[in-house]
């Protein structure tokens, strides 16, 4: 496996929405990062539909049908439909396969009839349970994920994604206690190990079919930190800590690309701008049009470098303006239209900068993901590119530096909580060993005892 030790982008200014160094083409005549932004819609089956395969398939059909109908009704040139599996869809691979088949059929019909460019992303759920023997590797659940991937690819998915949760036991422990070492161990070391295990297999499956390996997101870890950090007034964990966790997660999510994933990377990976800067692959992101799913503090900024603009997730139900697939595709569709207009009129850089500036100093996490800073963190990562631990650590240290510079320049002010948490975390990170094995040994000793769910065997440690 080849690690990234050099930046694919040579200049942060080249990072911009709708353009990636390595665009991706999928069937149904769609390209990502090839000069335009594709809107995405993702809708979760309503509760109760998981009771039978028939109900689930019907639900997925309706979601696809609604989305397609609205897309042509409002004139979208292209869109991506993503189906994120609920437990039953992944645990019963034939369900997932059948749902994919029916959705592919509908998409293809609209593609044939209207010439609209479409894509179908299937995202099986990571249903593995670390604390249940035999752990993350080789369990029935693990095998079911693989079978489900294959069923989706075989039945017409145009790309595959997953949100792996390797390392979550350790990072959860660290996030809830402000223990930055555990966070780094969970994301940088364990997360990276588990990604490699998972993604080598996914890429192999995709190679057998006309299906692209998309990407992964550190939803299980960095997003946990982001949500626990919450709004400006919440104090469960410091926003600066969440920002450091985010920087680390870029090193971890990059592993999917190193294993052969080509993008667009998965939407809820807020670390994606950094991964894009390093690897040149197109990315999906979500922000202001994902408010139906959760609240973040960078609703515009995260659009600056996007290639696929997503709504994250919403239950399948009726709103005043239509069903949720209709409503939310319309929201992401219009935003993509704005970006595409900017691209066509040669004003995309201005729009990108406006997106960036609305949120750059709202919160430390937004600051480090602004494209210029994301680029800097990317550089820190490739400097230690061959070592997943050291590159995650370097990313966090660089993020700390970026925050401190903004504070010194009087552009961002921190509260005492954010300040102290950042100072403490940076001090700990700086003093960590420079040898990955030594760090891993130390962490194994500490966290095997402290985190009952953590099982070193799941990572072959």
């Amino acid at each position, binding site marked *: 496996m080849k690690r990234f030790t050099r930046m694919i982008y040579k200049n942060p200014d080249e990072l911009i929405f709708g353009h990636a160094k390595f665009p991706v083409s999928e069937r149904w005549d769609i390209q990502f990062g090839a000069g335009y932004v594709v809107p995405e819609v993702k809708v979760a089956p309503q509760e109760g539909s998981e009771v039978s395969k028939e109900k689930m398939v019907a639900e997925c059909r309706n979601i696809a049908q609604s989305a397609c109908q609205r897309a042509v009704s409002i004139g979208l040139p292209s869109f991506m439909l993503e189906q994120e599996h609920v437990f039953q869809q992944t645990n019963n691979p034939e369900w997932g396969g059948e749902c994919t088949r029916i959705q592919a059929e509908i998409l293809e019909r609209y593609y044939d009839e209207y010439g609209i460019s479409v894509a179908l992303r299937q995202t099986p759920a990571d249903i593995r349970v670390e604390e249940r023997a035999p752990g993350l590797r080789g369990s029935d659940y693990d095998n079911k994920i693989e079978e489900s991937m294959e069923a989706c690819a075989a039945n017409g998915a145009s790309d595959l994604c997953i949100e792996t949760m390797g390392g979550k036991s350790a990072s959860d422990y660290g996030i809830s206690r402000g223990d930055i070492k555990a966070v780094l161990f969970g994301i940088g070391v364990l997360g990276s190990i588990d990604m490699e295990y998972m993604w080598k297999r996914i890429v192999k499956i995709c190679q057998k079919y006309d299906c692209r390996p998309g990407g992964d997101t550190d939803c299980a870890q960095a997003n946990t930190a982001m949500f626990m950090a919450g709004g400006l*007034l919440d104090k469960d964990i410091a926003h600066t800590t969440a920002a450091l966790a985010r920087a680390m997660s870029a090193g971890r999510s990059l592993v999917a690309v190193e294993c052969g994933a080509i993008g667009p990377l998965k939407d809820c990976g807020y670390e994606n701008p950094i991964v894009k800067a390093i690897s040149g692959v197109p990315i999906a992101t979500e922000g202001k049009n994902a408010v139906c799913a959760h609240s973040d503090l960078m609703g515009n900024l995260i659009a600056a470098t996007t290639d696929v603009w997503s709504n994250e997730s919403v239950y399948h139900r009726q709103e005043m303006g239509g069903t949720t697939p209709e409503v939310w595709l319309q929201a992401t569709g219009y935003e993509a239209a704005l970006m595409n207009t900017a691209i066509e009129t040669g004003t995309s850089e201005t729009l990108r900068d406006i997106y960036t*500036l609305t*949120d750059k100093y709202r919160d430390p996490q937004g600051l480090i993901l602004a494209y210029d800073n994301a680029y800097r963190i990317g550089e820190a990562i490739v400097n230690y590119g061959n070592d997943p631990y050291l590159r995650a650590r370097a990313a966090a240290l660089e993020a700390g530096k970026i925050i401190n510079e903004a504070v010194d320049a009087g552009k961002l002010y921190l509260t005492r*909580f954010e300040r102290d948490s950042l100072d403490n975390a940076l001090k700990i990170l700086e003093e960590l060993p420079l040898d990955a094995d030594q760090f891993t040994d130390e962490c194994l000793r500490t966290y095997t005892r402290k985190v009952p769910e953590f099982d070193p065997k799941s990572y072959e440690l």
Partner: protein
Amino acid sequence: MSNIEELESKLDQNFVAIRYNVEIEGPAIRPENDLDVRNILPTEEPYKSIALAVLYGDMEASLSNVNDGLEAGLSPVDIINNGLMKGMDAVSLLYTKGFYFLPDLMLSGDSMMEGVRVCEKILGHKSETKGTTVSFVAEGDPHDIGKNLVVMFLRANGYDAVDLGRDVPTTEVIDAVEKYKPLLLTGTALMTTTMTVFPKVVEELQKKGLEVPAFGCGGGSVRKDFVESFPMSVYGVEAYHAPKLADSILKDKKTWKDLRKEYSKIVGEFVSEYA
């Protein structure tokens, strides 16, 4: 200038987004950057580093800075007055401002005292202080957190605070008064069973013809009316009031009778017990 920097220069950030957490709590600043602290802290080295070590409650740095200063030939008295005490003054100020809390104060107090001890060793005698005070916990009472705070506040404010410890027999208190002639004696008790020694202490002092300007009594179950039921005593409400009472005895020659009458004014705040 790239496009984004140009745009940024045109933008008033608060027009777009307000960090309400910072608005409400105020931005984090390093303690030495507080404007009032800046006025207190010495600007020249090594006093600055000595004071900063106290400000950060860094015992190791405090000791090594003091030792460096002594080796460089500075006088121990200067190190105490221009370094250690300045650092502690800044700590007291930040405590009053609500920026520092009790544990900060305790840690800084320890760092300062360690430094003072080293200096006094060189000096060969106690350094010049504002005056001497004596503190004890009543006989039969082990609860000494309150007393420790009183001692810390007194020392932080430049007093030589003699600490007799916990469970102190009355005879030892009398002996200490005889020996040190303190300008303030303090007694604390948590249990109602043990606070009864306070009037006995006064009785014994009077028998021996001894007197202190004021005998501050306080602690868990001790109440003002009890304390004022015998002479020489003043009911102390908060540990940090102790140095203010001592100051008023020292500077304005106040007696225990004055302290009872002017308590709120002397400590400079509203005290409901004295309202």
